[in-house]
């Protein structure tokens, strides 16, 4: 069942992709026999054939993921989105401190250890990546190293 749902969704995307390839993408002028639209056309047809095969003969019935696990996955995705959103405004150190603490706590560390872990990844991670390896990381409100 999930196989069919997923294949159906992908088929919708593929149809959209194919429609763009067949009806919209066009070079204003070209000398070559194949334009920018030819390759996507071939791909959309191939993908549609594969998807039809999966819709015809699906092999995964259901996700064997239980309720609690879904919740934990949703929470970690929400945390990641939050981390991405705070990355530039708060800077690497603070955002990582927050994310590391909350994520470790969520996944089962005790509060104290999670806090220590968050602090360590934020500060040590910054010193290692921005200081030693000279990578470009957002600084946020904290003073420059």
């Amino acid at each position: 069942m999930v196989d069919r749902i997923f294949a159906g969704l992908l088929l919708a995307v593929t149809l959209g992709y194919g429609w763009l390839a067949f009806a919209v993408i066009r070079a204003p002028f070209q000398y070559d026999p194949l334009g920018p639209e030819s390759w996507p056309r071939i791909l959309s047809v191939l993908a549609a054939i594969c998807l039809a095969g999966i819709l015809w003969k699906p092999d995964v019935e259901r996700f064997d993921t239980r309720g609690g696990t879904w919740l934990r996955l949703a929470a970690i995705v929400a945390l990641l989105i939050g981390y991405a959103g705070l990355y530039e405004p708060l800077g690497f150190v603070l955002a990582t401190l927050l994310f590391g603490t909350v994520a470790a706590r969520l996944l089962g560390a005790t509060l104290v250890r999670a806090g220590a872990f968050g602090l360590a990844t934020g500060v040590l991670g910054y010193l290692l990546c921005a200081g030693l390896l000279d990578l470009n990381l957002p600084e946020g409100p904290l003073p420059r190293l």
Partner: protein
Amino acid sequence: METVLSGLATGFAVALTPLNILLVLFGCFSGTLIGALPGIGPINGVAILLPIAYGLGLPPESALILLAGIYYGAEYGGRISSILLNVPGDAGAVMTTLDGHPMALKGEAGRALSLSAVASFVGGTLAVIGLSLFGPLLAKFAVTFSPADYVALMVFAFASLASLVGRNGIKTLLGAVIGLMLATMGIDANTGVPRYTFGIPDLLAGIDFLVVVIGLFGMAELLHLVEQQVSGRLRTLPVDRSFLRRADLLRTRWTILRCSVIGFFIGILPGTGASVASAVAYGTEKRLAGKSGDSFGTGDLRGLAAPEAANNAAAGGALVPMLTLGIPGSGTTAILLGALLMFNVQPGPLMFTQRPEIAWGLIASMYLGNVALLIINLPLVGLFARMLTLPQHYLTPLIAMLAFVGVYSIVGNPFDLYLIILLGIFGWVLRKLDFSLAPVILGFVLGSLFENNLRRALSISAGDWGILIEDWKSIALYGLAVLVVILPAWAGRRSARAAADAVED
């Protein structure tokens, strides 16, 4: 032969500079550490560390030496979690658990670890020797390839991928097509027409390779780890004092040699890497062992040595098509290929002559790396084994942190942070539905190469599709593509019928 020797001389001149020696050692060491982490295999390790290696500002050959070290180091380290924990780091290490873990249960963990280290060393080293011999030959031949031949080669690559990787050929093929479709986003280089950018300026240059790799292999792996996380720690067996005996080596020497050869040649096949090689090697050895093969699966030395020799040999073999044809032999080499492209180095037949320091430098560094791996693995295995006890609740946030650092510091765009999360969810769903992710990245990396060669071929022929089957090389490659699809299906049906007959008797 002369080209090989002079090539190796060039290579060692590159590999023996202090910086590169250091990078080999560091790559092998950290690769083993990463490979030993339960659930994280070579492909995830290379994916997560790729942007950091890129960000260090190393010259391309040094960066490649480092990444390749992480790659085969992780292939080495994967056996540790397979043997002690019964959790393979990736598909290539699955077969190692079959006999490795029973040995550890019998109190022979040290013996299993040391034997597999030696098997890995032999497999890895034979593969590098094969790479030095076959690489230049194949490159010399491949120089004569026309665009039409490249199209045929690509069809062959995807055919062998669909028939040998994963359980469902249609899904593997669809995965590759998804990768190819993702690669069409952005401005078409030939005409300047934007495709599938939906007016979003961030997409004009297409989706960055790093973003796809980190999304599919870093973030999806992270979600997978969160899902799999069991309450409490996994039970690790201790490394005991048992060690490899002389008799063990004598008993397994032919197994190791045979499986190294099998692994190397399967690794060369475009698209198929360590997982296929180790499965085939294990099956072959079991069949060859005849009656005594019944002990396979209960801690047989040969059953442990076979997949370990094969998967390390395959890791080297997979580099052959990547370096000589620009067509990666596995998911991880697809990432290495993408890394080279980021340095504006186009791997292909001309690399051996035009950029010998990269091709030969890498090969020479792999000789050193294999020796280094054997030396650090025999005494330090206890240290690596401690990685197994790193709790998941620290590992998961660490992966996220590394992924974010990588994407932000190289691509430098907060939009991409959301994109990797999205791709991670997509990759996780694909995995849940039994798709393998390696074909997606292969399709993504090969997308523009495939399209450009097709367009070039048709420009040469002024639109006549007949050019695709004009040359004997193309026809031979299409023939191989058909064979690689038919043979496994035929063999599968035959063994199914044999099994059915056996039941009737």
